[in-house]
């Protein structure tokens, strides 16, 4: 049901990295293709008030630890209510990762941008509902 994020795993130490890399950062061995569920916890986050050229202020950045231990860098549309340890979902839009502690409008915008064909749009809406449920549950946990 949930689309997995492309990752790679070191055959020697079993470390997972996202996005996929050819060699393990800790061993000069070729990594194997893997997939990880786009669900995880916030390791840390920050808001840049003078972001570099090409980014609009305020720029929200987060480091997310996915299930299985891989960590990835994400953008977010807001960090209001986000805490270290918050459960979030992650999705890639045009190969850029967003963590979703997003409002309905933001999520819809991202999905419509991503989903081209009608079939995909319907699948995206389905996923959005799933994520909405997941997010509500996460917020309930805190």
């Amino acid at each position: 049901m949930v689309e997995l994020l492309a990752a790679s795993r070191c055959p020697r130490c079993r470390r997972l990295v996202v996005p996929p890399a050819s060699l393990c950062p800790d061993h000069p061995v070729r990594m194997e293709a893997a997939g990880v569920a786009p669900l995880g916890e916030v390791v840390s986050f920050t808001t840049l008030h003078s972001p570099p050229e090409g980014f609009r202020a305020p720029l929200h950045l987060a480091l997310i630890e996915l299930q299985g231990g891989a960590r990835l860098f994400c953008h977010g549309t807001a960090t209001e209510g986000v805490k270290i340890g918050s459960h979030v979902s992650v999705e890639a839009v045009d190969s850029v990762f967003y963590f979703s502690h997003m409002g309905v409008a933001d999520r819809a915008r991202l999905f419509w941008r991503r989903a081209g064909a009608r079939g995909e749009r319907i699948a995206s809406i389905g996923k959005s509902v799933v994520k909405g449920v997941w997010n509500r549950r996460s917020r309930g946990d805190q």
Partner: protein
Amino acid sequence: MWIAGAGMTRFGRRDENLPDLMAEAALLAMEDAGIDQPDALMVAAMNPEEFTGAGNYGSLIATRLGLSHVPAVRVETATSSGVAAVYAAFAAIAAGLHRAVLVVGGEKMTHVPTPRVSDIIGRSIDPHEKSYGATMPALAGLITRAAMHRRGLTLKEFSQVAVKNHANGARNPFAHFQEEVTLDAVMASRLVADPLRLFHCCPISDGGAALLLTADRRAVRIAGIGQGADTIAIRYRTDLTTFRATQAAAEVAYRMAGFGAERVEVAEIHDAFTPFELISLEDTGLVPPGKAGRATLDGETAIGGRLPVNPSGGLKARGHPLAATGISQIVELCWQLRGRAEGRQVEARVGLAQSIGGLATNNWVTLLEARR
């Protein structure tokens, strides 16, 4: 391995170009050493190509110094490049290749607009993470928030580091900032990368620093020097709140020296962001884990405290002309151990310098000891 001479320019906004700043520092170190014909030259500059447009920096500086016949090498490990050049000189002398090596480092940055400076410094960040808009302050912000959450680091603790280092800088004629700041001013300064504020970040500075290393016995020796490494990508690390690269570097340096943190009486620490001073004090074993914030609030790391840290003002107040910084830490310790740090002198025979390259990807720890 002995330090025969030490010299540096005043850090800050300087009108001179980079070769002139490096020459000023180098001539002071050679004069201090009484040696003007080193066997080799190690030059540290992090990114003179983009900051100044010039390259081939080893030969450029050798010629500028009137040492065009002396073999010169340029060394680079991002923001810790200065110590990398010290290490290269140390290794060359230890290997018996040379007897006297001049080390000089510097950076010229203030003539470049701030966004461009951030971009150039950001070249030392993992390209994938940089593509998300990650800058050095952004990564430091992530680390600081994680340290507050996991280690109980407080805003007041890492703000006090800025207060202390500015107070020290006010006593150092070589410092970029020579004014004290209040805790309130630090905590009210504008947010840069939440929770880091402007006064938690080091300035953009110009400057040069130099050392003359020799195999011949002098007043101060390099007792140990060590390098440690970590992943360039922050997402590959399992712990954000300690720097593996510092811990590894400290272990190597202490082993080489044959003594541990207990003998260190003064330290120069890489406080590019003030929480890094607290993290680094614990990574080097100078303060027990979780105690650096409290020790700072209690004045233990102030001049006159149990362990003075950054009597120079540190990167925060002395300034941070990238490749000059690591060398300037050792220059300061030399002066401290030789009783020549007027206005900020501490009582010490052993000093430790810690330098961070990139976002703690390539760190160094150096131990200096005054001759008995």
